[in-house]
Structure formats: structure tokens, C-alpha cells
């Protein structure tokens, strides 16, 4: 059924098609160059964190405990690495305060590290806080981001049933919190904590599984990814706000208001679902991102997507691009590939832009015993703008997509829409449920905008928008063919 609309779009009105296209997609290969940066060959390049200081020196924290630094040079093979600090237990978070002055989040604590005598090597290691427990489980790693006021947000990861806990643990122990696949046997596992400038630590948000990456954007919003797994049907991206619960139940045992003896894993699904804040963006596991790590905001100078977010994938050679859409005052939005293959290592863990915004440095590691997913890479923009979707905005009854270039002619089968939903529950990962092809009632373009009307939009579903054979007016092929929009709420 067609709805022929006479609107200001100077486009042809096209008939409806329902196609699921399995043909190979065209990915950008000419726009961003990926290079591997050599680290000293003696050291396992298990990269826990990457950050810059104000003088443009890159700091790299390795998970066995060393921190290296170097000024980037043109030849990625010829960075002159110096040793700055050592002795950290699985350093997975780092911020640089000033040259020679860094903050490291390691398994047992947040540590201020300083070179006080100016010899180029750290000599002072001061504990800023150790306000969380340590159970002896390998999975309990931490990541930090600045709070913008001299303090930090700390993402405290849960433990995994693939490792044990100890007879003697640090901090309070909860038998109930210890239950489950990924668990919270000691304090603040699965929480975001806030460390204020004066050293006070307060719980900020709960319900995380493995929020291996936390970021404060230029507007002051806090963002966390998480990993597909138990209570995570697919990889999510969360807008983190104070007091909210994000769906993985084990951390609830440490909520000061939690009833004593209540087992979060025995709560009815409905109760948990009603409590949780949904992801702003859901990233289909196989199609987009298997295991989100550090989000990073794109600066000016890196191509056409400044202000958007990139999200590394810890389990694949991919980086996802996030296009946020604010609907009724809340963030939701869409995702597509930014890098897919192109020589990118797997194990994407941390990312940081150079101060000029021209280079993204990525740090890779899986668990430190796979050699295919470890190292430092850098990504630079060629200066050429790809033909791609720049943003997707939800409208009443459909979507408006903005492209980076003016659209060319549209074939009648150029666009199809499908939708599905996910269910958050105990099982490790979950399928796309209630999949259905959607009726596209109208699509047409005006310059670089494309309007797609869908007969029935429903909240709490993910909409897949798929293109076939679309070209820009200048003939460029579309860099990405598939986009996923997480529709938490309709436009009021």
C-alpha cells in the first residue's frame, strides 16, 4: 500500500519494497588509513589504556604493569618509547593530568603517579582511593574518565564465573552478590563510582556487567558501553545518570537501600525490567559490535562526523559509529560501521584522539594471551569525505536521514526497513525477537536528506534501515548499507 504524499521533497515517490539484502556491502577503505604502531618488541603489547599529555606525548599502559611514553612521529614503526612507570595490576584506565603526572586505575585502586624529581621516570605512587573490594577474580578491571571538575568517574567491572574468588578478599563480601555468571561478590562491582576532587567516593549508577570503557562527552554526558553476555542480549551503549540502574542485577546487593537478604537474581523479570534504564543505542552483536569498549567523541579534523561517537569492539576488527538523536529530551539513536576490517586489529580496548584531532590512537588487547588482538594502532583521515549517512532523526511516522553528500537517483528497491526487539535476561546474549519487515510507505530525497516513512513505528524496537545500490549525485557509492536505530520512544 502506498501513501503518496505531496510534500516539499523534490523527489520521486517510489513504490514499496520489502527486501532483505544479503549481498556484500561496500565499506569505506579510502577514507581512513589504519597503521600499526610498533611498541618495543620485548614487551607484550597488551594495551590497557592510551592517553596524551598536554605536550603531545602519548602514554601507553600495558596490562602487565609498565607505562611507556613517546612523541608520535610520521613513521609508525619508529616511535622512540621511554619507560615512565611500572608496577600496576592490570592498568585498564588512565588519565594524564600533566606531563609526568598520570592517574591509573588498576585492579585494587586508583593511583596518582608522579615524576617528582623530573628525571623522566615516576617515583611517587599515591593511592587516591581503594573504595571497592577485590575478590581475586581476573575479570574485575576498572576504567576511568574525568568528571570535568578535577574528579573521576570509575567504571568497576564485575567478576566472571570463568575465574575463582579467594578465601580472603578485600572489602565486604556478599554471598548473594557472588551468585551468577558475572557477579558482584565484593563491593561496587557493576557500578559507576564517582571520585570527587576532594577524594570523596560515592556510588553513582548500578546495573553494569562489563562497562569496559567510560567517557564524558563535550556536553558533560557520561557514556558507557557494555559487553554482550548475561543480561545483555546484545552490546549496548548507555547514557549514565546518577541513581539509575542499567539492568545487570548482581550489583544491586551493594545498593545502600537494597533489602538485606534479597537476591536480585531471583527477582521476576518484570520487576527488573521496570527498574532498568534502557540503552540509548543497541548494537546488534554479530552485525555491528560484539563487545563495546571505550567510547570516544570525534573531534573536528577527522572527517565529516565531528561530535559523533566511536565505539571500539573488543571482539572484532571493527569500530562502530554512533549517531545520537535526542527525542523528547532523552538520547536514543543509531549506529553503523566506522571501520570494518581495513587492517584494524581485533581486541579494540581504548582510544584517544591527538590534540589536533587528526589521529585516533587505539589500544588493543583481549585477555593478554592472544597475539592477534594486541597492540597500538593509529587511524588518520585521508581528507576525502565518504558518501555515508551522517545522522538519523526520528520523525512522526518515520525517519529523516541526512547524508554527507547530495543523493543521486533512487531506484524503487533502494531502501528497506526491518525491525526487531531484544529481551534482557539471565541468558548469555539473546536473539533478535519478533523480527518483521516494515512497510515503507514513502521514501524520497531532497538534496542530502532522505525521508523514510514507515507504516507502523513502535517503541522498544530496533529498526534496521538497509540500502541497496544508492549512489551520491557525484557517483560515490554508499560507504555503509545498514543502519540500526534504537527506538526507545516515539516523537511526542
Amino acid at each position, binding site marked *: 500500500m502506498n501513501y503518496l504524499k505531496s510534500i516539499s521533497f523534490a523527489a520521486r515517490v517510489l513504490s514499496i519494497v520489502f527486501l532483505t539484502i544479503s549481498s556484500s556491502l561496500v565499506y569505506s577503505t579510502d577514507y581512513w588509513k589504519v597503521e600499526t604502531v610498533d611498541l618495543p618488541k*620485548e614487551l607484550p603489547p597488551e594495551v590497557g589504556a592510551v592517553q596524551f599529555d598536554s605536550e603531545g606525548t602519548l602514554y601507553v599502559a600495558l596490562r602487565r604493569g609498565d607505562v611507556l611514553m613517546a612523541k608520535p612521529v610520521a613513521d609508525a614503526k619508529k616511535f622512540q618509547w621511554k619507560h615512565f612507570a611500572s608496577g600496576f595490576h592490570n592498568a585498564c584506565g588512565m588519565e594524564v593530568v600533566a606531563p609526568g603526572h598520570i592517574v591509573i586505575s588498576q585492579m585494587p585502586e586508583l593511583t596518582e603517579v608522579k615524576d617528582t624529581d623530573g628525571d623522566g621516570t615516576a617515583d611517587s605512587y599515591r593511592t587516591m582511593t581503594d573504595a571497592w573490594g577485590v575478590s*581475586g577474580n581476573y575479570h574485575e578491571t576498572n576504567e576511568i574518565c574525568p568528571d570535568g571538575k578535577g574528579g573521576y568517574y570509575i567504571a568497576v567491572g564485575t567478576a566472571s564465573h570463568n575465574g575463582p574468588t579467594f578465601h580472603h578478599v578485600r572489602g565486604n563480601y556478599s554471598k548473594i552478590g557472588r551468585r551468577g555468571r558475572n557477579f558482584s561478590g565484593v563491593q561496587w562491582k557493576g557500578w559507576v563510582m564517582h571520585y570527587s576532587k576532594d577524594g570523596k567516593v560515592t556510588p553513582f549508577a548500578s546495573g553494569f556487567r562489563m562497562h569496559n570503557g567510560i567517557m564524558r562527552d563535550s556536553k558533560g554526558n557520561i557514556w558507557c558501553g557494555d559487553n554482550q553476555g548475561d543480561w545483555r542480549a546484545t552490546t549496548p551503549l548507555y547514557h549514565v545518570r546518577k541513581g539509575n540502574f542499567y539492568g545487570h542485577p548482581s550489583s544491586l546487593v551493594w545498593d545502600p537501600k537494597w533489602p538485606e537478604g534479597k537476591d536480585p537474581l531471583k527477582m521476576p523479570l518484570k520487576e527488573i525490567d521496570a527498574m532498568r534504564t534502557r540503552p540509548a543505542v543497541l548494537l546488534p552483536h554479530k552485525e555491528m559490535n560484539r563487545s563495546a569498549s571505550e567510547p570516544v567523541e570525534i573531534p573536528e579534523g577527522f572527517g565529516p562526523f565531528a561530535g559523533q561517537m566511536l565505539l571500539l569492539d573488543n571482539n572484532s576488527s571493527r569500530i562502530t559509529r554512533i549517531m545520537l538523536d535526542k527525542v523528547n529530551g532523552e538520547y536514543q539513536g543509531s549506529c553503523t560501521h566506522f571501520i570494518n576490517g581495513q587492517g584494524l586489529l581485533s581486541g579494540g580496548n581504548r582510544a584517544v584522539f591527538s590534540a589536533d584531532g587528526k589521529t585516533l590512537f587505539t589500544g588493543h588487547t583481549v585477555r593478554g594471551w592472544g597475539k592477534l588482538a594486541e597492540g597500538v594502532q593509529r587511524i588518520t583521515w585521508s581528507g576525502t569525505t565518504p558518501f555515508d549517512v551522517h545522522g538519523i532523526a526520528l520523525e512522526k511516522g518515520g525517519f529523516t536521514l541526512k547524508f554527507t553528500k547530495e543523493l543521486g537517483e533512487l531506484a524503487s528497491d533502494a531502501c528497506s526497513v526491518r525491525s526487531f526487539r531484544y529481551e534482557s535476561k*539471565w541468558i548469555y546474549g539473546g536473539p533478535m525477537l519478533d523480527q518483521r519487515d516494515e512497510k515503507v510507505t514513502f521514501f524520497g530525497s531532497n538534496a542530502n536528506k532522505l525521508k523514510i516513512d514507515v507504516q507502523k513505528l513502535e517503541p522498544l524496537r530496533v529498526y534496521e534501515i538497509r540500502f541497496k545500490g544508492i549512489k551520491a549525485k557525484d557517483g560515490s557509492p554508499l560507504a555503509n548499507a545498514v543502519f540500526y536505530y534504537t527506538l526507545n520512544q516515539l516523537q511526542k
Partner: protein
Amino acid sequence: MAAAVAPVIAESSGLPSTALTYGNRPLGSPEEPLLLRTFMPDPSLGDEVLGRHERGAKSPRYSAKKGSDVPGEYKPIDGLPAAIGVNYGSALSYCWDTVECRLLYVWNNGFLDMQNYWGDPSRGNRQSFGYVPNLVGTMFYKAGGKHPVQMGGKSLSDLPEPPKFLGYTKTGKRIIFSYSAGSAEIACEVSSGDVAHNLVIRYKVKGGGELGYQSSLPGHTVKKVSPSELIVTIQGSKIAQYEGSPNKNLLKGGVNAESGKRVFAAMACVTCHSLDGSKSHGPSLLGIHGKERKIKGANKPALADDAYILESIRNPNAKVVDGYPENYMPPYQLKKDEYQALLLYIKTLK
């Protein structure tokens, strides 16, 4: 034991000799100590010494597939969650704990074997369930009883508030730990004495209060330099000998499904491959043998026969099952018979 030789840090590299390489037995030297924060071994220190730690407990086994407990339980293991290991070469290794704020044990002629945490470099993977390294060398001091340091005549174990670790400085060969006890700040520096199994510990207090030292263990000499400074000399003696990670023969009893199960456990395969059909990073191995597998980028499915399974262990990226990541599983370097045993075990998973 065919231990892989650790790459030695070349002087020209500009890296210190203590930088952590692929080698599993990192060492410092008398001039350049190595400080390593990791899970540390707990040589049965006991509840009194670890009095500021909480007690872990066994936990029911849980199935994420069922969303409920299943028969069996997870048992806690021995380990110190937040202690620090320091090594000065063959002369001195010690374990200082940030929870108890106390020296826990001292040994020489070796440091730690990190294989349990870092994996076996010759095989390229981890090989245990726990992540606690093994001790190497001769232990000659082990803490016992209450905290030996006293403030105002009271052991730190008896203060209402636990001591709080503040950090450390590391300059040249000196490492000085700091912690607070009440309103006082105590600095502690451990070094080796002039003779074998001899130990010198310097304590200094800032912020008032008289420092004392009382140990129930033999061999202690306490020299009071001033009310705020003590030098404790400990003459230890051999307590135990440690050899690092045992060289386990996984194939004891022959090449069969049973020894294959040991290979499966030793290589920590279960971290990514479930045995009950549930999802994880890699495909479940339940019923895999003889099944058709959909391969990424291939027109037709592959049969998971013996050759397929062996290839998938040796060269996991040769055929990646649709829906799973490429370049994720490392190629496993097993002995020839270990591959066979592992295959026999996988064939039993029905």
C-alpha cells in the same frame, strides 16, 4: 622443562631491565628492584595475619542458560587480592600487603612464576583457572600473629580503624611504603641484611605517637633510633622451598578422553567454549563432532570431523563459524598427543 627463554631487555632499548617481557619469571636486581602488583600467593598465612581481610565463601554453581543454580559449587582458592611483590634479584623477594599494611613473607633465590596469570609463552595462552602466580625460591620469613607494629603500646591489629595504605615511593633502589594508623603516618622500608636470610626493616612515624614493635616470632632485634623511628632486624631461617609452576604431564595415563579433559581444563578452553550448549565467545562444544558447521564466507557448510576439529585448534582462523569473530582465538600450540587427547575428549561431549 622446556621453558621459553624470556626476551632480555637490550640496554640500547632505553627500557629498564625490569620491564615486563613475555618471560614468566620477571626479576629485579639489587640496584633496580622490580615491584609487581598482581594477585599474590598466600602461603597459608591464616586468619589472624589476614585479620583485615573479609572471608570469601563457596558459592553455588550457576547456569546462565537456565538462569538458576545447578548442582555443584565454586570453591574459593588461596590468594592475596591486593598485595605487592618486590624483588631485588636473588638476594631478596618480599610480599607487602596493602590491606594489612604489613610485611607478609620474605624469600630469596627467585621471585614469582607468572604462568598462571600470563600464560605459557611457548604455548601462547593461559593455562589455569586461577590467576595466582607460583612462588620461586626459599622462604625464610612468614608473618605470624598480630601486626607487630604498635602505636601507643597497641598493635595495629587492635586499633578500631584498620590501617590505610597511602602508597609508596620508588627512587633508585629504595621502595618506601606509607600507611596511616589513626592520625599517624607510618613509613616502612624493607631491605636485605648482610648475611643470608637476614632482613632489615625501617619504620618511621610522622604525626605524633610513639612507635613500638612486638613480634611473637623468634630472631627479631628491635633498635629504637628515636620515639618515631625503629630499625628491626630479623634473622630468618628456611621455612619452605618453592619451584614455580609444576611441569604437569597432562597425558598421564595415556592419550584418551580423560587426559583430553585435563588438556581442556589446563588450556582454559571453557573460558570461551561452553560444554552445555550455552553461548559464549566461541561456539559451544556440546555435540559438535559430526555436525555441519556454517562457515563465514563459505558457500557450503563444513563437517566437524576429526580433521576439522584439529584444524580449529591449531589454526582457528582457517574456518570461522558464522556468527563468531575472526582473529579472536589464538592458535594453540599443543604437543602432538595433546591435540589427539583433546579431540577424543571433544568427541565425548554429546
